[in-house]
């Protein structure tokens, strides 16, 4: 018998005492916290992102380019990699001091030599301060937002949901072309040494969030 057939046979033999039919629990339960108002959801999101020691800058729809320029200047980034589908307006304000690199055939070592990355995002969660990337064209493949040390991430207020179940719902993989997801809650961190939290290990040590509000 193949390993698969044998394991499945064992599994079936192990539960002959159970009678509930498949899916007897019904719809997958949805347990979340209610949002008081959209405004409070946004405030909670900002508060929780800051709590993770990430930076948050709030701008109007026209302020993104300037905010990105200011951020890269502040971190002293002299190079930035951009995903192919990024809104060109976002990098239009960058001066000559910053080398803009398109993601064309870059290897890990090439990425490692670049100071920063700018991405959009898919969904964000207020109760946890989480930003989810689905690595669409405005976010780029996963390595892009991983290897460079500064991640500037643009979140639109309309993308912020209140709690985890709703985010999960919105991120349901598309039949036929599921996307990989990366959930980001603050910069990389470890608590492995005496349970003391240290920000900044392998992932970007700086997470800079630009929140666009209408």
């Amino acid at each position, binding site marked *: 018998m*193949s*390993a*698969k057939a*044998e*394991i*499945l046979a*064992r*599994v*079936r*033999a*192990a*539960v*002959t*005492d159970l009678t*509930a039919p*498949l*899916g007897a*629990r019904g719809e*997958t*339960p949805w*347990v*979340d*916290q209610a949002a008081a108002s959209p405004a409070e959801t946004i405030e909670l999101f900002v508060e*929780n992102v800051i709590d*993770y020691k990430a930076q948050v800058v709030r701008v109007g729809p026209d302020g993104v380019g300037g905010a990105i320029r200011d951020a890269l200047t502040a971190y002293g980034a002299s190079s930035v990699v951009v995903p192919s589908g990024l809104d060109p307006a976002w990098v239009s304000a960058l001066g000559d001091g910053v080398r803009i690199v398109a993601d064309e055939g870059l290897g890990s*070592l090439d990425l*490692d030599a670049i100071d920063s990355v700018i991405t959009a995002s898919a969904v964000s969660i207020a109760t946890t*301060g989480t930003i989810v990337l689905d*690595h669409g064209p405005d976010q780029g493949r*996963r*390595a892009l937002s*991983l*290897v460079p040390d500064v991640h500037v991430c643009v979140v639109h207020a309309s993308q912020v949901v209140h709690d*985890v*179940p709703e985010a*999960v*719902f919105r991120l*349901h*993989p598309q039949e036929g072309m*599921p996307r*990989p*997801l*990366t*959930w980001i*809650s*603050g*910069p*990389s*961190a*470890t608590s*492995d*040494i*005496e*349970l*003391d939290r*240290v920000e*900044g*290990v*392998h*992932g970007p040590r700086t997470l800079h969030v630009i929140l666009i509000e209408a």
Partner: protein
Amino acid sequence: MTAEPLTEPTAGPLQATSPTFVGMPKFPYAARTALGNTQQRRNLAHATGVIRAKRAKVVAEIDRWEELRQAGADAKDELLGHMAAYLEQLETNLTKGGATVHWARDAAEANRIVVDLVKGTGATEVVKVKSMATQEIELNEALEAEGINAWETDLAELIVQFGHDRPSHILVPAIHRNRSEIREIFRKEMGLVGRPAPDDLTDEPKRLAEAARLHLREKFMRATVAISGANFAVAETGSLVVVESEGNGRMCLTLPDTLISVVGIEKVLPTWQDLGTFMQLLPRSSTGERMNPYTSIWSGVHEGDGPQNVHVVLIDNGRTHVLADPVGREALRCIRCSACLNTCPVYERTGGHAYGSVYPGPIGAILNPQLRGTASDVDKSLPFASTLCGACFEACPMRIDIPKLLVHLRAKVVDAKGRNTVEGRAMAAGAWAFGDAKRLARLQKASTLGGKILGNRQLPALPGAIGQWLSIRDIPELPAQTFRQWWADRERKGGAS
């Protein structure tokens, strides 16, 4: 609907005790040694104290925590009742997504599959994401035996690997080490296998993490094969989920060409939406954070993004044995969050090594004797390594009634050992005494009399267990009269005033 006659569940084979843990002493003996390790005692008391407080704070933020726990338990119970269906669904969807699924009955088979896959790529080293499943099957040892270096990339696992040590905690495997010990380990070991620790390395956690970053970066950049586990495997969508903090997971899951994930068959979630529950339960219970810094989710191969050669190895290794026990199977709901360890007063004092398995603490005490059976000294003793205080059950996000399972396993140990033991005879005598109130009353009379004879109860040192007990405690004076006698006297005198 026709009523099918129910049959007794039949159990799959037990897990073979891995070479590392063969011959482990009984828990009480290992515990005695651990209790004497002052450095470890201090490290553990500090770390568990910190994490308990953090967990309590973020759990209190969620009003509907109990509903969440129930939803989590229900999802896993749905899985456990229909595991064959969900495993097949998972395989179908993974395959559709471009992954190759392998099945392994036991550790040896799983290791052989992984070793062959790695060899097939021509790689002589792999980077690893922290994974309980690969520790359980001792994959690193199997790879090394074939000349393949396995680099652990989680900071704590790195500390353990460099320290030639064993993990002592599910989530924070180096919880028994403090910062100065870690500094020494890094200084001694890093240079032997790659970029050495900087000369001026201090014991500041920030500096230590920085040293690990620099050391591992080389390995991430050149690795062609990564090995991971998975926190969840979603049957509905064929998605694997890895929850982590440091970004080492993202490095391993993203940069190499080949990714091999070793996943226990109980890690499956029926539906995608179940993640809405589990992604609340797990981070708050494990690290005491609202959300862990990074979670990676992939569904097979994603064109132009990440590994293009994706394998998933589904392992049984004793799990179907656990599944067949109608009471014990709820242990398979476990999501390895480690909340039960952090809250356990026994674990806090003994640390993880005394449990003789990669699964320590309360979950280890119920899981190991079920996965491996109760033939060995350590597995026989584990169900008794608890005061049944219930702190673990209260903390467990999956509502695993650990005390109840411990009691259930105690009965199994006793049933297997038989009752012709000192303890068994004492218990039989006790049961006989309690079997009848009149008999009990006669025996009580004798004991109160004994109380008078023994006077002030400052007993001389007694041998054995009772002696141990009395070595630190005085025992109460026995009363002149039992309650039963008092009541009878009062009744005789006319009852209540």
